[in-house]
């Protein structure tokens, strides 16, 4: 799941997937602005077939939180 999430993030932010480390977050990835955050939400929802609440969207600010939230929502590996 983490690898798939990384690939989605790489597509959305336009960076090499190797640049998305385990502790990637809105602080460490400079391309992670509010506009791309919207894109990230749509791309993650499509990829993992889930729907985030608006509360969750505000909190999806790192790879760890993304993976945690996806698991909470029962997304498939």
């Amino acid at each position: 799941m983490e690898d798939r999430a990384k690939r989605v993030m790489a597509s959305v932010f336009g960076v090499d997937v190797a640049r998305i480390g385990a502790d990637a977050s809105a602080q460490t990835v400079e391309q992670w602005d509010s506009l791309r955050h919207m894109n990230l939400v749509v791309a993650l929802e499509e990829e993992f077939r889930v729907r985030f609440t608006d509360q969750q969207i505000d909190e999806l600010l790192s790879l760890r939180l993304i993976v945690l939230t996806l698991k909470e929502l029962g997304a498939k590996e």
Partner: protein
Amino acid sequence: MSEISYGELLRRNRELEATLEGKRLKIALLSNVVVAQLKEILEYSLRSCGVNAQVELGDYDNVVQDSARFAGHDVVALFWEPCNFIDGLHYRAALMGADELAALRERLFGELDLTLGNLRLTPLVLFNRFSTLLFNCHELRDTALDRLCRDLNHRLEERAGANLLAVDVDRVIAQVSVAGSVEWRSFHSVRAPYRVEFLRAYAEHVSPALLSLAGRARKALIFDCDNTLWEGVLGEDGEEGIAMSAQTRQGRPFAEVQGIAKALGRDGVVLGLCSKNNPQDVDRVLTTHGDMTLRDEDLVVKRVNWADKVTNLQDIADTLNIGLDSLVFVDDSNFEIGLVRERLPEVVTLHVPATRYDYPALMRRLRVLFFTLSRSSEDAAKTRMYREEAQRQQAASSFASIEDYLRSLGLSLTLHVNDAGLVPRMAQLTQKTNQFNLTTRRYTEADVQRFLAGGAHLVLAFRVADRFGDYGITGLAIVEHAPGAQRARIDTLLMSCRVLGRNVERALFDRLVADLTARGARVLEAEYVRTTKNAQVEDLFDRFGLRVTEASDERKRYQLNLAGYAPAGIDYIEVMESDGRQG
């Protein structure tokens, strides 16, 4: 647009940005809500068509000032949403008094006039008509918001210049559904009302206008004839047997397609034919058949012959002096469509559906490819111009090698030797086959039974299949030959036109020669008997290397010394016998 995931779209769009060259198409996207995701979606939809588009976003809710700032772009697209004329207008309008609403309307009229004035010299303005559909789709009566939008749309229509295209977003929403278009979650958090699904449909909806501006609109619509302009096969069913009358169930879809095509022709689209048929037969239908909507004078180019369609389409493009990427080709055959898609991927193809009632709707959907921004009187004259040009040129036909394509088809030929179970079908083939039929001898089931029982004939029915499917028993050879005899004679050789163009006849003939040799034959006799419909096979035996022994207007007789036969050795058709034994 192909249905790739949104993440994939973002990735590919970035790749295309890095690789595309050529003139930039600069598009500004102005809005009073957030539609930022349309930037990449619209870019991708155009870049994947080879247009080097660049979308720039205006500031949030700053349409009037931005219209001055971006007026120099090639295109300005506007999302000016009533729900945000003032914050929450979609529900506040119902609470406002008449005076308040009138004042708002006057203010908006002023802003609209200013905006349109600023954009009057921009080459293309895509202005979404004001819509309330996301909020009011369940209402029985028009609301205050509806009335306001109606007034604004009226004003827009009055003041719009020729460079403005008023986009009816309701049509886009209708394609996606209201629930599938709106995203309340982001509407309430960041004033982004539209889902990506809507934005993708919007990009697809407006792209014909942008492609037209970039000079990428399609220019020519080329039809096959049989089962494409009419139901049925002219060479088999005859003029009376084909259907394109608006008065019959079979004919109606074809009458409608012809009508759509004719209207396109009047708008300047070049219409043409690319069909394997006898040209005189098709010309007679075009000039005299009472059910035809399309007439000879509507058609600019005609390639009605027995050459392959790749060669003919290339020839058509050369004759009209347009690119292959300007062509749209319509045909009912999987084989022909597959061939064109593989060899000429620039050509857009439409495969006539087996469910004929769906055909006109598909044609209407395709029609947008010909959308042009300018609708001048020159368009109608263009047909005549192209036509004259086409008549001047008598392009030499060249033969493309289609072997690679045939190789990819996985063709197989299954032989049924003296198979009594196929008597009805074999008799039917002799009765119905006209075009690929060397002698056109009609036999009843009893006749065929006699051939099988008499022991002096080799009766060979064959089945053709490829990766598109099984065409069934589509050919027949009846050869007079008593086992051990030196002389053999081809009585009948025929094939359904559904399997033409695959070199099946040659593979069959190779096999026939081998089988007859094994049965002790030394000399094979054959003949071609001319009818009004079988001109396409008049030189078949000449091409196979048989020697002409006698020739007149009505018939040609041939002889072949079997030992001297040079097989074509076609390796891409698997020949089998019906018990599965490979040969």
